[in-house]
């Protein structure tokens, strides 16, 4: 095997991209355990000289992250359950039973995937205000779900379209009702696809910022993403806690992405 210049160049570029990919996250993690003085030291220290969990403590004592974590979790679970249940049902309906207008409706839903969420926020805001739902978890949940639903339908319909119909037809001959067939036969076989949409729905809701910042004003409904953005005020940026919050916020999605890498990449690349 010969090692030409191009080979070495490509190895060099590869190493460089690995460094660029990892560095921001590594730097954030390192900064999060440095003392406040060390974070502000010029030039920056590459290897932390101090080690403190003070900023992580601050998250809970000064920035109310206990409450915000509960909010974010409820929002993520709620969005996941609603969008996966009604989205999968609809995808199955679109895949197996066409009815008048179903093609149009499906096309609209898929196109809706492209809609600018910031544009939808304006009327949803006035609507939520009319219902007295501003600054509630429910309003944020609804906002994220409406953006997430088209994605769920897209993935699930692609999956159902590729599933052989014979088993369902046999169930029908046996006199099983369609709804029962759906829950007892189709859903169990669709588990890999469902895992993908569950994962993606959860992550989408967990990382949402737009609906949180638009609808939430107090800790009653505030998600973690808004909490981290509030750490920079017009006067000051709380760098230490902000870095700790970044690590804290990333950990769940990172663990999910690594454990369920197969589903993660599948959801990422499906439909292209």
């Amino acid at each position: 095997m010969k090692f030409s210049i191009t080979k070495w160049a490509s190895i060099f570029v590869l190493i460089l991209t690995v460094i660029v990919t990892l560095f921001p996250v590594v730097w954030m993690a390192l900064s999060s355990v440095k003392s406040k003085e060390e974070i502000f030291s010029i030039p920056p220290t590459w290897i932390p000289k101090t080690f403190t969990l003070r900023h992580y403590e601050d998250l809970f004592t000064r920035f109310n992250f206990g409450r915000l974590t509960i909010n974010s979790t409820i929002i993520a679970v709620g969005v996941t359950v609603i969008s996966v249940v009604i989205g999968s049902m609809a995808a199955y309906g679109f895949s197996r039973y066409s009815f008048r207008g179903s093609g149009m409706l499906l096309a609209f839903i898929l196109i809706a995937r492209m809609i600018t969420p910031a544009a939808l926020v304006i009327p949803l805001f006035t609507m939520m205000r009319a219902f007295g739902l501003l600054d509630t978890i429910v309003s944020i949940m609804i906002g994220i779900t409406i953006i997430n639903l088209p994605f769920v339908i897209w993935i699930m319909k692609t999956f159902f379209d590729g599933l052989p119909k014979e088993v369902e037809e046999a169930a029908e001959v046996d006199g099983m009702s369609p709804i029962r067939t759906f829950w007892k036969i189709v859903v169990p076989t669709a588990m890999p696809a469902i895992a993908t949409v569950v994962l993606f729905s959860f992550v989408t809701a967990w990382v949402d910022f737009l609906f949180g910042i638009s609808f939430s004003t107090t800790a009653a409904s505030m998600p973690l993403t808004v909490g981290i953005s509030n750490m920079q005020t017009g006067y000051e940026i709380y760098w230490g806690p902000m870095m700790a919050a970044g690590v804290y916020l990333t950990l769940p999605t990172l663990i999910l992405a690594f454990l369920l890498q197969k589903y993660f990449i599948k959801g990422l690349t499906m439909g292209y």
Partner: protein
Amino acid sequence: MGKNKRWKTGVLLVFPCFLFIFAFMIYPICSVGYLSFHEYSPLRSPETFFVGLKNYEWMAGSYIVSYSLYVTILFTVVSVAIELIVGLYLANVLAKQMREKSSKIGKGLNRVLRSIFILPFAVPAVVAAVAWKMMLQPQFGPVNALLGVNVAWTTQYPLLSVIVADAWKMTPFILFILFAAIMSIPAERFEAIKIDGASGWQEFRYVTFPAILPVTAVAIAFRAVDAFTKIFDVVYVMTGGGPGMQTQVFPLLIWKTAFNYFHFGEASALAVAAIAISLIFGSILILRRRSK
């Protein structure tokens, strides 16, 4: 099962979803259309006043709006270009590795690399924004220290800063789509051209490139529409649209018009324009795909 009953089952399955979409997407789109012909400033008055096309006239004539569109297009083009170049390169390297190194170490290395490259995608956009804000911090940020310069990135080169953060986060998307596409090319084709003594570049030019071109085009189109219509979090957190309006991308302009300046009428007109743009591009993409 009778035809009538089949129809009923279909409707029954789709109905809950339809209800949700109608209540929280179709109805709001109609109401934002209605609002766009009105003046509504909740701070001044709870009432709405009909103003005809005034908001649209403002939108058509405003420099703020045209500048915002310009910034958004520039942002989209540059960040998608970076994502494509880096993504395509890495996808090729990974796929080549996967094909040629069948040893355990080669496969293991590949797994590690893929885990590394998926990382930015698993990082929430707001976190990517604060991480890069730290990286680019002029006094104690590592980028200036490494380069030995003293640049206030987010104020001197605000758009570039935002593009770097966004491209960093979104490159894995392109990378993994292209990787999957390259891996689905039959191995014989690579072997055949290799026997003919082709170089790495020729291999890419005559085997890989033609095979992945359709997928690449679709992925870029989706990614561009996404970048154009959905860029918000990174800009909001990193620069807030500033300095001045240098990074005021279109979604952020809509949001600020409503929630910072409380001009809901004008914001609605902008929203209608944004929805129209996304529906047009969305239909072109989806209908083209469905017709294939």
